[in-house]
C-alpha cells in the first residue's frame, strides 16, 4: 500500500479545494491518520473506497473521541542580557493558552479486496456545543450506520445525511451524552417520579399550615 504521505498528496492533487492534514501518532504503534475537512469528506471517502490502488471497501471501526478544551502552558527560554555587563541570564517565560475543544470521529478503513490497511481518517467538529455537525459516511460505507448512531448517542455529534439518526444504546428520552468527559452521572440512577409525591402534596391541604394563625390558635388552646 502507498504511504500515508502519498495518499495525502494524491488527495490534494485530486481535490484542490480540500484540506487534508497528516496527524502523527507519537506512540509505538505509529498508526498515523489523515484529518479531513468536513465539507469535502464525503467525496474523499468515495474516492478512497473506489480508487483502484486503494479500494478501501471495508470500514472496520468508527468511533468518537472527546477533546475538551485544555489549558496548555508553553515554556520559552529567553536569554536576558545583564545590564551590569555580566553573562546573559536565561529566564523561563511561561505563557498560557487555551486549546479549543472539539469532538472527533475516527474511521478505520481497510481493503478486503486488496487485503491492506488501515488508513485512519478523522473528522473534527468546530467546537463541543453548537457546531457539532459532521457529514455522515454511512452512504459510502453502510458499516458506519450503527456506529455513527452510537457516536450521536454517546458523544452528541450530529451526522448530516445519516438515514436513521436516533439514539441507539440510551433510551430516546435521555438528555445528555454520557461518553463526554464532562458528563456528570446522576446521584441516583434509580430515581423516578412516583405518585406518592402528588399524594403527599394533596394530603397537606387537609392539615393547617405549621406557622399560620390556625397553628398559633391550636397552640394556645381553645378559648374559654
Amino acid at each position, binding site marked *: 500500500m502507498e504511504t500515508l504521505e502519498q495518499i495525502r498528496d494524491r488527495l490534494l492533487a485530486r481535490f484542490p479545494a480540500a484540506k487534508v492534514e497528516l496527524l502523527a*501518532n*507519537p*506512540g*509505538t*504503534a*505509529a*498508526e498515523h491518520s489523515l484529518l479531513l475537512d468536513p465539507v469535502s469528506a464525503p467525496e474523499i471517502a468515495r474516492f478512497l473506497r473506489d480508487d483502484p490502488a486503494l479500494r478501501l*471497501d*471495508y*470500514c*472496520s*471501526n468508527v*468511533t468518537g*473521541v472527546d477533546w475538551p478544551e485544555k489549558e496548555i502552558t508553553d515554556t520559552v527560554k529567553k536569554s536576558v542580557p545583564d545590564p551590569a555587563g555580566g553573562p546573559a541570564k536565561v529566564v523561563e517565560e511561561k505563557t498560557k493558552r487555551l486549546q479549543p475543544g472539539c469532538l472527533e470521529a*475516527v474511521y*478505520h478503513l481497510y481493503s*478486503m*479486496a486488496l*487485503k491492506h490497511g*488501515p488508513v*485512519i481518517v478523522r473528522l473534527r467538529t468546530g467546537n463541543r456545543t453548537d457546531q457539532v455537525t459532521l457529514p455522515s459516511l454511512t452512504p459510502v*460505507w*453502510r*458499516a*458506519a*450506520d*450503527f*456506529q455513527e448512531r452510537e457516536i450521536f448517542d*454517546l458523544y452528541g455529534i450530529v451526522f448530516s445525511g445519516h438515514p436513521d439518526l436516533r*439514539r*441507539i*444504546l*440510551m*433510551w430516546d428520552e435521555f438528555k445528555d451524552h*454520557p*461518553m463526554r468527559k464532562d458528563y456528570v452521572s446522576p446521584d441516583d440512577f434509580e430515581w423516578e417520579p412516583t405518585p406518592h409525591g402528588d399524594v403527599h402534596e394533596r394530603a397537606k391541604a387537609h392539615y393547617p399550615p405549621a406557622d399560620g394563625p390556625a397553628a398559633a390558635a391550636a397552640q394556645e388552646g381553645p378559648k374559654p
Partner: protein
Amino acid sequence: MSCSDQSGLDAELSAFGRPGGPTVRPVHDQFHGDLLEVSMGPQHPSTHGVFRMVVTLDGEQIVKLKPVFGYLHRNHEKIAENTSYLGSMPYTDRLDYLCSMSTNWAYALAVEKLSGQAVPDRAQYLRIIMAELTRLVNHSCLVGFLFNDLGTSFTPLLYAFREREKILDLFESLSGSRMMCNYQRFGGCRVDPSPEWLAAAQALVDGFPRFLDEYETMLTGNEIMLARTQGVGRLDPAHAVNAGITGPVLRASGVGYDLRKVDGYGFYPRFDFRVPVGEAGDTYDRYMMRILEMRESVKILQQAFRDLPAGPVMDPKAKLRGFRPKAGEAYGRLEGPKGELGFYLISDGSPNPWRYRVRPPSLINLTLLEEMCLGHTIADAVVILGSIDIVLGEVDR
C-alpha cells in the same frame, strides 16, 4: 392469517394483548393492506438475550424489521476509561461471555500494540490454544442454539453442551473460572498449564472430530434443516463487505477474509490451516462455516500441542503495576469466533486510557439483518438471527 377481516383481527389482538404478552398493533398501508407491527423481545427466547426486533408483518411475511438495542447497556467504555488498563481486563470477559479467552486476547493485543510490549513464544502458543478452544465452544453451541431456533428443542444443544462442559472444565482448572477466565495479561498469560492439563486438553482435542462426525450425522443432512435453511437469509458479498460484516457470516457469502491469515497476528502464520468459504451466503452456508471452522480449529490445536515450546509465559520486562503506556493510539483486532473483534485505545500517558473503544462484531453483523429477513416469514427471521450469532453483552456493551 387473514388480516382483511377486522373482527378476526380484533380477536387476534385481544389474544396477544394480555399483560406481559407481545405488543401487537395494526398498521394500515395502502399498498399492502392491513399490516401488523409485532415487537419481538426483549424477553423473547429466540433473541438470544435482551434484543428486540420491531417487525412489521404482512400476513406472516416480514416487510420491515427494526432492531432495538441497549437493554444491556452499561457503558463499558466509560467504565474502562475510569479504571487502569489492567483493571478492565476482567471486565472484557463480560463482553462476549461465551468467548472470554478471545476477548481477553483482543484487549491484550491492542494494549501490547500501544505499549510495544513483547510476548514470549510459549504464551503466543497458549493464546492460540485458548482462542481455538473458545472457537470450538462458541461454534458448537451456536449450532445447538440454531437448532433450538429451528424447533428441535435442546437435543442438539445438549450434545454441544456436553463437549462445551469438558472445555470449560479445562478453563476452570487453568484460570479458576469457567467463563470469566481473565487469563491474558499484557506481555503473556497469567498461569502456565501443567503437563497434565496439556495432556487432558490434547485428549479432548483428539476426540473432538468424533463429536463433530456424530453431530454432523445428526444435523447436516437433516431434511427439515435443509428445507428451513437453504436459500433463507441470503447475503450477497458486495453488500456484506460494505456493511462491515465479518467472521463466518461474511465468509459464508464467499469473501475469504480471515484476520488470522490477513493480519497474521500472534503466531498464526506458523500454522497450516485453511479458511472455509461459502457460496450461497444463506443460513445453511453459515451453519456449514461453523462446522468446517471447527475442523480447522482442531487442526490448529493439534499443531499447537505438537510445537508448544518450553519457556516463560510472561515477558519478564512486562509491567503490571504502574503501567503507563506513552501517549499515542493503537487499534488491535483479531478474528474472534463471531467476527472481527477490535479494541481502539488512545493513551495520554496516564494510568487510564483516554479513549477505550470496543469494535463489537455482533452489533455490526446485525446491520443487514433487515435486508436478510425481508420477504421471509417470521419463523425464518428467528433462524436468520440465530445464524448471525450475536451475544448481547457485546452488542450493548
